[in-house]
C-alpha cells in the first residue's frame, strides 16, 4: 500500500481509531498493551500484504528467527556470566547464534536481491551463458530495511546494549511497524522496541504534530518529487538528444526528486508513527544545506549512515587506526552503502565516488568541521557558506547522475552531455510545464531554510496567529491535491 494512495487514505484513519479504541478499553494495562501490539502487527501485515501477501511469510520468518536468536544469544551470555558452563564454549555459543542470525538474514537478502547480479556478472567475466541459473525472483519491497532492523537487534543483544524480549508480539510489531516497514527509517531496537513494551497514551499535541509532518511529507512527495519525476524520466529516456542545459536541469531536478521522495516518505512515516504514540528517529536533516560532503552524510539517510557507522565502521576500527586502514574502512562503508541500494555497478560506483570525496576530509581530520546548523542565528549564509553549499550540492548532483543511470557508461555519456557548449542554451523538454513545480520547489527550499533548526520543514513556530497557520495548512493540502500526478508514482526507495 502506498502512503499516497486512496487505499491508505481509508486505511490510516480506521487503524488509528481501532488502535486508540483498544487503548481506552477498560481492561488491564498489560492486556491492553498486548492487544494494541497485536493490532499493530495485524495492520502492518495488511499494509504489506496489500502489495503481495506471499512475502508476509518472509517477514514473519525473519522476525521469528531474529527474536529467537536474541533469546539464545542472551541465554548463552547469561550462562557465561553465571559460570554454568565452560567460558570459551559459552562465548562461542553466543557468537554462534549471532553469526547464524546474521548469515540467515544476509543470506535471504543475498538470494532475493543479489543472486541474479552475481550470477550474471560471473557469466560476463567467464564468457558463459548463465540464463538458466538465474532465479528472476521479485524483489520483496523494503527487504533491505527490515533485514537491517532485524540485524541491529541481535547485534545489540550480543553487545549487551539491549535485553532480549520474550514478548514475541512486541518484537513482531518492532520489525513490521507499518509506517517504517518498507522504506525506513531503519530503527534501532534500543529506540523502538522499548516503546512497544510500555503503555502508550494518546497525546493530542503529538498527534497534531504528526499530522503536520505527514502533510509536509506528502507535499515533498506529491508536489515536488512526483512532478520532478515526469521531467526527469522524459529527459533520461532521451538524454542523447537533449542539450547540456536540459541535462543539467534534469540532474538537479532528480536531486530534488530523490530528496522529496525519500525524505517525504520519512516525514510521512515519522508523522504516522506519532499518531500512534511512537517516536521514530530522524532520517534527514536538510542535507542540501551542507557545507561539505562529510556534513552531507551526517544529514542524508541518517538511519542507514549511522547503522553502517555503528555496526561496520567502528568495529573495523573507524578512524582511530592507521591511515591505510582509514582508507580501507572509508571505502568499505561507502561501497557497502552503495551496494545496499541495489545490485548494480552504478550504485557501487556512486558509493566509490562519495568515498573519494569523503577521504580527504577524514585524512585531514576535517570530517567533523561542520556539526552545527549553517548560518546559525542568522537569516542568510555568508558568501563563503553559500559557495560551500553550492559546491557540495553540485558534487552531490554528479553523484546522483551515477546513481540514476542504468550503466556506468550511460552516466559517463550523461555527464559528457552536460559538459557541452549547449549548456549555455535555454533548457528544453517541456520546462514551461514545469514552471509550477519549480515554483513549489523554490517554496520548499525557502520553508526548509527558514525552519532548518526544526525537526521538519513545516514545524512553524514563527507564525503566531493560529488562523494564519490553519490557512497555510489548508492551502498546502489543496496544493497537494491539485498537484497529484497522472499515474501513481511509487516511492523510489521501495526498490531498495
Amino acid at each position, binding site marked *: 500500500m502506498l502512503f499516497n494512495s*486512496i487505499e491508505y487514505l481509508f486505511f490510516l484513519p480506521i487503524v488509528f481509531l481501532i488502535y486508540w479504541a483498544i487503548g481506552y478499553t477498560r481492561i488491564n494495562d498489560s492486556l491492553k498493551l498486548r492487544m494494541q501490539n497485536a493490532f499493530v502487527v495485524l495492520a502492518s501485515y495488511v499494509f504489506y500484504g496489500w502489495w503481495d501477501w506471499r512475502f508476509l511469510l518472509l517477514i514473519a520468518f525473519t522476525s521469528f528467527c531474529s527474536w529467537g536468536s536474541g533469546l539464545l544469544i542472551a541465554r548463552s551470555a547469561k550462562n557465561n556470566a553465571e559460570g554454568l558452563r565452560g567460558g570459551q564454549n559459552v562465548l562461542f555459543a553466543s557468537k554462534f547464534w549471532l553469526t547464524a542470525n546474521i548469515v540467515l538474514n544476509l543470506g535471504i537478502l543475498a538470494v532475493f536481491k543479489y543472486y541474479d547480479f552475481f550470477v550474471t556478472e560471473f557469466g560476463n567475466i567467464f564468457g558463459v551463458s548463465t540464463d538458466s541459473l538465474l532465479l528472476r525472483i521479485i524483489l520483496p519491497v523494503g527487504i533491505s530495511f527490515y533485514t537491517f532492523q532485524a540485524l541491529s537487534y541481535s547485534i545489540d543483544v550480543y553487545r549487551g546494549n539491549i535485553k532480549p524480549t520474550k514478548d514475541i508480539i512486541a518484537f513482531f510489531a518492532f520489525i513490521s511497524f507499518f509506517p517504517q516497514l518498507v522504506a525506513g527509517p531503519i530503527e534501532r531496537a534500543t529506540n523502538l522496541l522499548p516503546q512497544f513494551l510500555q503503555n502508550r497514551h494518546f497525546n493530542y499535541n503529538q498527534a*497534531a504534530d504528526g*499530522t503536520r509532518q505527514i502533510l509536509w511529507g506528502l507535499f515533498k512527495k506529491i*508536489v515536488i518529487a512526483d*512532478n520532478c519525476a*515526469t521531467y526527469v524520466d522524459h529527459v533520461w529516456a532521451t538524454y542523447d538528444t537533449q542539450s547540456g542545459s536540459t541535462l543539467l536541469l534534469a540532474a538537479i531536478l532528480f536531486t530534488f526528486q530523490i530528496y522529496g521522495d525519500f525524505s517525504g516518505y520519512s516525514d510521512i512515516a515519522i508523522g504516522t508513527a506519532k499518531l500512534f504514540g511512537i517516536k521514530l528517529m530522524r532520517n534527514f536533516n536538510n542535507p542540501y544545506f551542507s557545507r561539505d560532503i562529510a556534513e552531507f552524510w551526517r544529514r542524508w539517510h541518517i538511519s542507514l549512515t549511522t547503522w553502517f557507522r555503528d555496526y561496520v565502521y567502528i568495529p573495523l576500527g573507524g578512524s582511530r587506526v592507521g591511515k591505510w586502514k582509514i582508507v580501507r574502512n572509508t571505502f568499505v562503508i561507502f561501497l557497502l552503502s552503495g551496494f545496499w541500494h541495489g545490485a548494480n555497478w552504478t550504485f557501487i560506483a556512486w558509493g566509490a565516488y562519495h568515498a573519494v570525496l569523503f577521504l580527504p576530509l577524514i585524512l585531514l581530520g576535517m570530517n567533523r568541521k561542520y556539526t552545527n546548523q549553517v548560518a546559525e542565528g542568522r537569516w542568510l549564509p555568508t558568501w563563503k557558506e553559500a559557495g560551500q553549499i553550492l559546491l557540495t550540492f553540485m558534487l552531490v548532483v554528479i553523484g546522483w547522475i551515477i546513481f540514476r543511470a542504468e550503466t556506468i557508461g550511460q552516466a559517463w555519456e550523461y555527464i559528457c552531455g552536460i559538459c557541452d557548449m549547449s549548456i549555455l542554451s535555454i533548457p528544453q523538454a517541456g520546462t514551461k*510545464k*514545469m*514552471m*509550477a*513545480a519549480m*515554483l*513549489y520547489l523554490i517554496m520548499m527550499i525557502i520553508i526548509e531554510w527558514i525552519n532548518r533548526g526544526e525537526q521538519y520543514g513545516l514545524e512553524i513556530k514563527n507564525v503566531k496567529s493560529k488562523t494564519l497557520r*490553519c490557512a497555510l*495548512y*489548508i*492551502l498546502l*493540502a*489543496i*496544493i497537494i*491535491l*491539485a*498537484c*497529484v*500526478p*497522472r*499515474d501513481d508514482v511509487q516511492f523510489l526507495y521501495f526498490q531498495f
Partner: protein
Amino acid sequence: MVKILLLSMSVILLYIPMYCILASLHLVCPIPVYHDELRLTELTMSEISDYHDIDILFVGSSQSYRGFDVRQFKEAGYSSFNMGTTSQRPYQNHLLLNKYIDSLRPRLVVLAVSPVLMQVSKESTLDYLWSDFEKDKIQWELDKLRMTLNCKSWYMFNMWVYNAYRHHVYNPLMRRMGKLQPMERHIDGDEMIVGPDKYVRGGYVERQVDLTCSPEPKKTKVIEYDSVQVYYMKQCVKLLEDRNIQYILVEPPIQPSAYANWVNHSEWEQIIAAYPYLNYNEPVFLNDTIDFYDNGHMNYIGVEKFNKIFISYLKDSLQFVPNYPSELNEEICN
C-alpha cells in the same frame, strides 16, 4: 479531533474553486490538459439522435469507428451507425448502450473488442472530458463524472473539475465578452475534415494510405486484464440479452506484426469463450504496410477488405438480411 475535522471540511469545501483558480493561473502541476478543438466524439454524439431502428450498431473504440465503414454497409443494404469513440472501454460501451440503445433500436450490435481494451486506461475518459457536448449538457456532465469516479484517480477528478469549469464557466463567459468564437460542433453535409481524418456521417472515420507505416518491431507484450472492464463487458452483453437484441463480438484486425507480439492470448480466449466471437486477426489477410496507418488501425484500403469479408459473413453465415430494401434504407439513413 474536531479541529482536524474542521480543517478537512474546509479543504473539501474550498477545493474545487481553489483548484480552478490555481489551474487558471498555471499554478498546478501537471497543468491540466484542455483541448479546445472539435473532437470526433462530439461529432458522433451530435448525430446519434438522428438514427432510429437501424440494422447494425457498431460499438467500441477507434478500432470500431476506424474499422467499420458505414458507407460500405449501406451499399450492402444495411442501415448502420458507428458509436465508437476514442479508446472506448467496455465501461463506456455500457454507458453509451444504456443511454442510446432504446432510441437506436438496432437489430444487431457489433461490439468491437480487443485484449488491449481490457486494460486500465484513462484515455477514453479524458476524451469525453475534453469533449463539449451541445445536447444534454447536464446529463453529459454527470456521465463524465461517473466515468471519472470509475477511474479511481485524483488526477482524473482534477481533470473533470477543470474541464467542467472550462466548458460551463470560462468558455461561455469568454464568448459573452467576445474573446472566444463559438465553434461548430456538429457535422454539415456527409463528410467533414477533422485534422488528418475524414469524418463520415454515421460515425466512420477514414484515414488515407500512408505507406511509411512499418511493422511493429519484435517485442513481447503482456496484457494485464482489468477485472472492471471484464465485468462491464458482461454487463453490455446482459443489457443486449435483456432486450433480445442479437449481438456479436468482433476483434478487428491490427497489424499482423503487432498481433504476433502479444503473448498471453490464452487468458483472452478464456474471457471471450462465453460469447459469439470472431477474430479477424487470424488467419492474416492484411499487410503491415499497405493496409494500416499505424500498429492498431487500418487505413481505408484495409477497411474495405475487412468490411467486405465481414459483410459476406453477415449475409452468408449469420443469414442477417437487411430490414429494408436499399432505397428505403437510404431514406432512413438520411
